[in-house]
């Protein structure tokens, strides 16, 4: 029985590493990306007694401040929904095949992977 629902929404930043970001292009790998999202959700279900998960990730051209990703988790008790939602986001950032290219005032550039995201995902590997 659903007692708790936790949801996360991520947005396109309008500033990153000092440059103003006007838009972003999100590339994915059709087939592998869907497979990876299912695998991430299955891992969350194996770790916590959660009821349902929803992952929506946009691809293609996105303007600054647009929503990129939604992760929603329902569970009987709130601590499981919080943990599973944060786990899914940390894994999405480091494992799901998505690549961001920013269009800034200084031109276009591919976004590099962040050490902080890798560290966040590593927390769950114990």
């Amino acid at each position, binding site marked *: 029985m659903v007692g708790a629902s936790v949801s996360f929404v991520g947005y396109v930043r309008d500033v990153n590493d000092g440059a103003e970001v006007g838009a972003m292009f999100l590339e994915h*790998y059709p087939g592998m990306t869907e497979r990876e999202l299912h695998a991430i959700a299955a891992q969350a279900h194996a770790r916590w007694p959660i009821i349902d998960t929803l992952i929506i990730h946009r691809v293609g051209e996105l303007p600054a401040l647009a929503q990129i990703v939604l992760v929603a988790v329902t569970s009987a008790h709130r601590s499981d929904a919080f943990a599973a939602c944060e786990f899914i986001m940390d894994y999405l*950032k480091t494992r799901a*095949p*998505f690549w*961001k290219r920013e269009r800034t005032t200084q031109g276009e550039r591919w976004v590099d992977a962040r050490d902080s995201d890798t560290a966040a995902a590593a927390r769950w590997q114990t």
Partner: protein
Amino acid sequence: MANGVGRAFAAYNAAMNLELVFLARLRERFGVARERLLWDGEGERVADLLAALRMRGGAFAVELAPERSWRVAVNHEVVDLDYVLADGDEVAIFPPVTGG
């Protein structure tokens, strides 16, 4: 080697058809998103294929250098350099992911 033809073919010189996929920055640098390759090079491991791609020189040599960051997936699953390729495999090479 999914069928009799493939097996017979492999008996000669291990040649196989591979579908290469390049993504994001690598797709841009190489100027190609997908490439069908009849692979009859030395060895059947991912490492052997990468060595052959570097021999093309140019962006391939630069971007696929061992010290650069890239990942390889075969049939949509990330693999390491010792993974043994088979006829019909889809081999994707891409930079570290930056989703979410």
